[in-house]
């Protein structure tokens, strides 16, 4: 049985959207926690991680638009930060998240890219945002040395997450023939 989760445009009220957003937020928080359980250590550089929660950001962005994407991201970061992290992980997460979602909104708006490109740039932007916070909190930090590595990994992981979010999106929006949002908006 396939549940039709997505609201059909105009036919259903906001309650379904609210419920679905809450579901997505919970999913994002779970993804964020899962990531904390399995940290990836490449080159000894902090910040290299797959960004599973980004799948949720991309899906919500495509389903409901920027405002919902920002909200889900913020609630996820604050939830995860206060449950499993500290004040710093909230600041890092929020800055990375705001950078990422902003870039993704802008790229989506250009209509030139599908979800993979949008998500890849979002991943890169996320890492750059976190690096800027690191510079502010640590004071002395030579950005030139870290940006290339973080951009490469942000882009790679972002692309993978972009393809995954495309697949997930297609499955949850099945049945809505008018929902070809992931195709290029020419």
């Amino acid at each position, binding site marked *: 049985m396939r549940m039709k989760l997505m609201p059909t445009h105009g036919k259903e009220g906001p309650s379904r959207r609210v419920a679905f957003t809450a579901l997505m937020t919970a999913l994002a928080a779970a993804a964020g926690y899962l990531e904390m359980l399995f940290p990836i250590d490449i080159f000894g550089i902090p910040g290299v991680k797959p960004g599973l929660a980004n799948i949720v950001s991309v899906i919500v962005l495509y389903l409901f638009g920027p405002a919902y994407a920002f909200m889900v991201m913020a609630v996820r970061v604050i939830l995860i930060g206060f449950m499993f992290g500290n004040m710093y992980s909230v600041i890092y997460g929020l800055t990375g998240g705001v950078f990422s979602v902003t870039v993704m909104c802008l790229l989506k708006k250009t209509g030139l890219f*599908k979800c993979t490109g949008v998500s890849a740039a979002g991943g890169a932007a996320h890492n750059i945002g976190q690096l800027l916070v690191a510079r502010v909190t640590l004071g002395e930090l030579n950005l030139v040395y870290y940006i290339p590595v973080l951009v490469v990994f942000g882009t790679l992981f972002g692309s993978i997450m*972009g393809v995954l979010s*495309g697949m997930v999106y297609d499955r949850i929006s099945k049945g809505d023939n008018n929902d070809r949002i992931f195709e290029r908006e020419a």
Partner: protein
Amino acid sequence: MFKYFGRNDCILIAVLILGAFAAACIYHISGKDGKLARVYVDGTLTGEYLLSEEARIDINGYGGGTNTLVIEDGAAFIEEADCPDKLCVHQGRISREGMELVCMPNRVVVRIAGKDENETDAYTW
């Protein structure tokens, strides 16, 4: 699967990755061997050590943590740290000007500098 990315997405991803590689290459080629290891704790300079002299220094980080900095063969590395992630230890040996070892939990940064004078940022491009 090709449904999810088109030509523009490939171009975007390629530009990001190649751009990053180009930046890294330029940075690496322009790097010079450093002379000094500068230790910063929470943004303030707490010590300077010559790379030509072997040394073992215990750095007292922010919030009571310690990192053991070792200098030998003209390179610096963190041998031991009491932070939970040990990322600074895994960052390995550094000897080039401008390279850094960073320990976020203890807010310790070790940066390689070129000269004895205070003109560390001269290499920035």
